[in-house]
């Protein structure tokens, strides 16, 4: 099965390991993500002002190109791209006059009718592949991994575009349980990491990262799993003690490890301290509970 794939800038520039791992694990699951042609930056944040139509042009251009290429749906790995594209799609459906204006502004080049579907890879995994099929592909269960799923904002909010319950999401936890890991939870899993404030208000990000990592550790986690490349950057690079940082991994990388793929093919150097700490005996199956809920 094939599906069009929209990478976005950051996956290509800052998070190639997420893409490499995603393409590898989807191949194992029999799904081919083929990169759409002529994609551009989605604009990253959905414009919230009522009169700023120009800022919807970037995501609408992506949809227009998609339709020109004969595709009806597109999948993305990046939470911010997912959110921006999905919200622009809502505008296209609810305010077709705005699409008319964009079409006119572009000299009729960008013609989009709101009929495409944007999906996050986690939706494909949960709703089309299914956790049972994922579990069936596991060759090396991650029994000794105690992992804290971190959702952040853009997968979940606003509710009308979010892919899971915004207050008590389960998709990452269910996926980790299917891989054989122990899931550690806490009430900061859905709290914003500080996002773009890392550019010039680093203290805000540092405070959020410190609280989140402290909760994950206190509840027994030996790694954090997440989806968003910006959350990954903040959580991986803004921990107070880099020498004893809690490892931060993409769910695609953990899927690859559980499927028995070589770490090097998942953007994971095979002998790093990170790997040793996060997965000390991950490849030695032991009987431990599938899922233990930490204190919330």
């Amino acid at each position: 099965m094939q599906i069009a794939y929209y990478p976005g800038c950051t996956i290509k520039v800052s998070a190639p390991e997420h893409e490499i791992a995603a393409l590898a694990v989807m191949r194992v699951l029999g799904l081919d993500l083929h990169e759409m042609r002529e994609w551009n930056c989605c604009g990253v944040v959905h414009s919230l002002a009522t009169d700023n139509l120009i800022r919807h042009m970037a995501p609408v251009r992506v949809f227009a190109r998609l339709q020109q290429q004969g595709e009806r749906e597109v999948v993305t790995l990046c939470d911010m791209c997912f959110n921006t594209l999905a919200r622009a799609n809502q505008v296209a459906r609810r305010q077709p006059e705005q699409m008319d204006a964009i079409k006119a502004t572009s000299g009729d080049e960008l013609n989009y009718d709101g009929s495409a579907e944007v999906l996050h890879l986690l939706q494909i995994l949960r709703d089309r592949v299914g956790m049972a099929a994922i579990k069936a592909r596991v060759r090396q269960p991650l029994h000794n991994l105690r992992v804290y799923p971190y959702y952040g904002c853009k997968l979940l909010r606003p509710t009308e575009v979010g892919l899971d319950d915004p207050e008590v999401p389960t998709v990452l936890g269910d996926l980790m349980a299917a891989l054989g890991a122990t899931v550690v939870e806490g009430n900061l899993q859905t709290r914003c990491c500080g996002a773009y404030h890392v550019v010039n208000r680093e203290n805000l990000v540092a405070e959020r990262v410190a609280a989140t990592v402290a909760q994950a550790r206190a509840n027994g986690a030996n790694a954090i799993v997440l989806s968003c490349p910006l959350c990954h950057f903040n959580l991986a690079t803004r921990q107070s003690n880099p020498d004893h940082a809690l490892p931060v991994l993409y769910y695609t990388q953990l899927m690859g490890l559980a499927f028995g793929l070589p770490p090097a093919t998942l953007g994971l150097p095979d002998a790093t301290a990170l790997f040793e700490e996060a997965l000390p005996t991950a490849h030695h199956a032991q009987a431990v509970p599938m899922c233990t809920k930490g204190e919330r």
Partner: protein
Amino acid sequence: MTTSIRIGSGRNELLQKVEALSGQHLANCYQCGTCAAGCPFHQAMDLLPDALIQHLRLGLPGILERQTFWICAGCDTCSDRCPRGLDIARIMEALRQICLREGGDHPALTQLERADLGALPPIALVASMRRNSG
């Protein structure tokens, strides 16, 4: 210090601008504080979101000098939880836009060292640019 409040007299131009740009009707807020309680950054704000709305409604001075709407990262927790259906993130965006359109853009990344620019992910840079330009 004495502050005079005149309710119902004169035009509250800032409130009108904010409502036009955000598409939100601020009279709907009943000051429950759910937005402030759930905000991950409330400790860094110099006026909590519910108080900001009240200041706007009353036409109090100094609103555009506040840091609250620059601190807001648009995580949508408040907008999602508001029992009155107010999209508070849009109110914050309206205040940012009013400042930027009247006072000019101030993209933070112009102050970054080249090495920092290279290290930061594009989504951080573009989001910061967009939040700091009108």
